Each structure stands twice: as C-alpha cells, then as structure tokens.
C-alpha cells in the first residue's frame, strides 16, 4: 500500500538527517510507481505528481514531524479533488419527459447490462417509467440481450429490428416513449473503437437526431494506459455528460478512473459492481481513491 511504501522510504531518509529536495524526489518517485501500478496513465501520473510536489514543498512537509503521513494526506486530498469531491454528479432527471440517455463506449465495457441497471435504479429510486432501446444492430443477439434484460426487470423494451439504422431506431423510440407515457429513454449503442470513423459518426448522428440529456461513457474499471486516449476521443466527438465505471466488483485498482476524469473533466456518476441488474451504485470519490492508492 502507499502508506507502507512511504513509511519505508521515509525510514531510509530519517537516518540521513534533514529532508531536502532530493529525497522529496525519491518520495515522489515512490508515489508515481504506486499510481502506475494502479494503471493510472503515464502522463496523468506525471501531472499529478507535480501537484503533489508543489503542495509538499509549499506546506513545509520538509519541517513536518510526520512527513510520511503529511504526504499521504496531500496525495489523498489532491486525488479526491480531481475525482470530483463535492461536485454534483447526479443524473439529469428534471427535464420535460422523456429524459433521454445514451450509453457509449468500447466493446464489452458493460453498456447493455448498465442500461438495464440504470433503468431499474431510476424506476426504484425516482419512480421513473423507463424504455430500453436496443440500438446495436451489429453484435449477434444484442437486441435480444436487452430484450431479455427488459423482460427480467419487467421494463419496456423498444422492438428494434437489426435491419434498421440505429439513428432511425433512436428517433422512433422517442415517439414510442411519448405514446406510451414512458419518461426515460435509455439508448444502448454498439461497442466501437474510438478510431472507427464511421461508427463514431453514427454516434454523432444519433446525438443530433435525439439530443440526449445524458451521454454516458461506459468504461471498464480494469482499463490500462489507453483509457485516456479512448475517453478523450469519445468526449471530443460527443461532449459526454458523465462516466460509468463498470466491473468494480473485481480487484482492479481502477487507476483508469483518475485518468478518464483528469483528461475529460467529466463527472463519474455511477459504478457497476456486479453482473446482476441491481449491482449499480452512485460514485463516491473517496472510495476509488483508497482503492487506487492500495
């Protein structure tokens, strides 16, 4: 863990007398390695360490009696600040119905399952009447997957046809929702690469057609270094409104959370914590910080 590594690093220094810039550098290196081992992006880790360095030097950690604890405190505070401590990360609901949400992200990140989870969550806690909309016409049995999830939850699922265009599916689903007095539309899109021009354009077209209130980037918590480039591209093309981090029920440290948050500045709204349809929680910055720091 970070505290163990810093304690041992400071113990080495203690014998040599007073703290100086050189051993601060050693301490900072230890912290940087912890972040990299937790999958924080290389450049994000570097920038983060500079914040910590400035604060450490500025707060006279050099004169502190408990420099190791002082450092940990600074690291935790800086990370929680970046993660959005104190920021409003609630889902947009106070809109003229239907509220329209769109789920986007790389292949296999958990979008379809998350669509079901969010529908269930908002019905349970905010008395919404959701409509699940399968807009993935490429993956075998993707439409059936969301249909089955809807059936499990007893939540309406738009009858998409895989021969239809996802943009048309999205448009028609809004009329369908209005007809049936459903006040929340969740559009599940196909997984895609951020470098697939045609498919990224498709997402832009869906956005243009239905003007979603939430564009949620669904990211796997175990993602490594590339989390930054992927998130940056989805954000720059779509101006995402929030992030959902999935599979946090595993033992991935989740450094991707810091990377994605640092590069997009967008709020992490929800976390997926299991395969069942009620395994979703609101995101709390302090929890992911202790996880990343080990």
């Amino acid at each position, binding site marked *: 863990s970070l505290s163990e590594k810093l304690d041992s690093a400071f113990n080495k220094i203690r014998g040599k007398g007073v703290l100086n810039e050189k051993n601060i550098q050693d301490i900072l290196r230890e912290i940087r390695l912890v972040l990299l081992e937790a999958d924080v992006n290389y450049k994000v880790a570097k920038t983060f360490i500079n914040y910590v360095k400035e604060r450490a030097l500025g707060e006279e950690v050099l004169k502190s009696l408990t420099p190791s604890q002082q450092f940990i405190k600074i690291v935790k505070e800086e990370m929680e600040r970046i993660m959005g401590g104190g920021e409003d990360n609630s889902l947009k609901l106070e809109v003229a119905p239907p509220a329209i949400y769109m789920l986007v992200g790389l*292949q*296999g990140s958990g979008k379809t399952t998350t669509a079901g989870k969010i529908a269930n969550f908002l019905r349970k806690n905010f008395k919404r009447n959701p409509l699940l909309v399968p807009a993935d016409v490429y993956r075998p049995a993707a439409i059936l997957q969301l249909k*089955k999830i809807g059936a499990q939850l007893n939540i309406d699922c738009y009858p998409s046809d895989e021969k239809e265009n996802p943009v048309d599916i999205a448009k028609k689903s809004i009329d369908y929702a209005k007809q049936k007095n459903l006040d929340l539309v969740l559009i599940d899109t196909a997984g895609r690469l951020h470098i697939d021009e045609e498919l990224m354009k498709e997402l832009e077209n869906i956005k243009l057609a239905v003007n979603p209130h939430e564009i949620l980037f669904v990211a796997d918590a175990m993602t490594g270094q590339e989390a930054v480039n992927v998130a940056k591209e989805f954000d720059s093309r779509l101006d995402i409104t929030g992030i959902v981090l999935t599979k946090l029920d595993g033992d991935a440290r989740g450094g991707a959370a810091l990377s994605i948050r640092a590069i997009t500045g967008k709020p992490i709204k929800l976390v997926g914590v299991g395969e069942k349809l009620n395994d979703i929680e609101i995101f709390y910055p302090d929890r992911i910080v202790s996880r990343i720091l080990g």
Partner: protein
Amino acid sequence: LLGKKELDEDVIEQLEELLISSDIGVKTTLYLIEKIEERISRAKLDDVKEVKNALKEYLLEILMKNHSELIFNRKPFVIMVVGVNGTGKTTTIGKLANKYKNSGKKVLLAAADTFRAAAIEQLEEWAKRANIDIIKQKEGADPSAVAFDAVKAAQARDVDVLIIDTAGRLHTKVNLMEELKKMKRVIKKVIPDAPHEVLLVLDANTGQNAISQTKMFNEALDVTGIVMTKLDGTAKGGIVVAVTNEFGIPIRYIGVGEKIEDLREFNPKEFVEAILE
C-alpha cells in the same frame, strides 16, 4: 549539444514512457530499463535506434521463450474458453470454429454460458455463420451438464475439435471459479486428459489486472494458452509480456476485429515491432 549523461537520461525517460504506455507494467519496465542502462554504461549503445533494437531483442527473448502453437494431437480435441466478463470469448470461439473448419476439421461448439442474457443465442449465431453444430440447453441449465453433453456428443459424432464457451466471470469470485473447476472435473469424467487446452481470453485494453486474472484462472484450471483480443484498437497489449514472463503460458492467437476472419496466430516479432513503433 547535450552531454552523454543528459542524452541517456532523456532516452531512458522516453523508453520508460513508451513501455509503461504499452501496458508492459512497472516491474517489467524497470527490469528492461535496467538491462538497457547496463548496456549504455558499457558504451555499447550510442543512439536511440540502437537502444530500441536492444529493447526489441529483450522483448522478443521473453516472448519467444514460451512461444508455441496448438497441436491437435487428440480427438476430439477439447478446448475450454475462459476469462473475465466482456473480453471477447464468444466472438473468439466463432472465429476459431471458422478457422478450424476451413482447415478441414470437424468442429462442434458448446454453449455452456447458461447465465448471461442471450449468451446461447449469440453463440448460435456464430455457429450458423461458420455452418457448425452446437450443443446447447435451456438458459439457467447447469453449465457442467452442457459441457458433459458436448463431450459425449463430440465422441459420438467423431468430431475433431470441441470448443466450450463459458460465462465471463471475475477471477475474484470464488464460487464462480469453483463452477469452472467443476466443469473441468466433469469433462475429465468422459475424457480423462481433457480439456486439452484451457484458453484464457484477455482484452488488450486491460491494464495490470490481467496479471491477477491470469494468476487466478491458472491456479484454478491450469491455463495452457492465451488469446489477446481487441488489438485492432489503440491499446498495445503489453500486458502479455508480463503475463507470459511470469506464468510461462503461450500466447496462441490475437483478435483484430469483430468479423469472423479477424483472428491471427500470435507473431512475437510483429507484436514487438507494433509496441516499439
């Protein structure tokens, strides 16, 4: 001009960024940098190009050490496909089935993910595309029962290769890992030395958690091969270097897209060049 010392530090930092950014991981990166620094200090490397070549050499050394192809020396050759959620197991099975069929083998698939919504139908679609038979039961059936039926059927139908799809599961879920161990025992009841290949599917986007995944799946099942998927994206998949180095498991194939033909045999040289470009 920079003095030799600054040049070295600059080069070392560039290398560190290149390796870490490819998901090679801290431990392996530090090990490789150490070897490079030794050679620089012995003045055996004069520029970035030479340094990169040395790095290529060291990476290739790690990957070649455990490199081996699948040899179909049993009939039916039983492959059990496992891995965490969403890595590309079902799609990879579709690709493998097609590849083996095209090479003249009689292939049978088993839809042993009886848990996830539409998992059976998803694999059925792939079987249809490759024009291959599939053994399946109802959603919610015991996955081991499906595997048992499939192995029996493979024997009865004189099949060359049986590929068993399992539900994605996190390696930290003890009961789910037990379910896989049970499936392996059940398969052994029919064919004592089966499964002949336990294929772990890793996603190229995954960071250091791939090490923990490999460790746990290996401890539970004795993994004999790895497939790394989604290398058509921008992730470099450097995690296979650490994984193969630590566990000695060969990388069999890589997935490079979502279509049935998007599968390649793992080529260490091409892989290393892609990382270093």
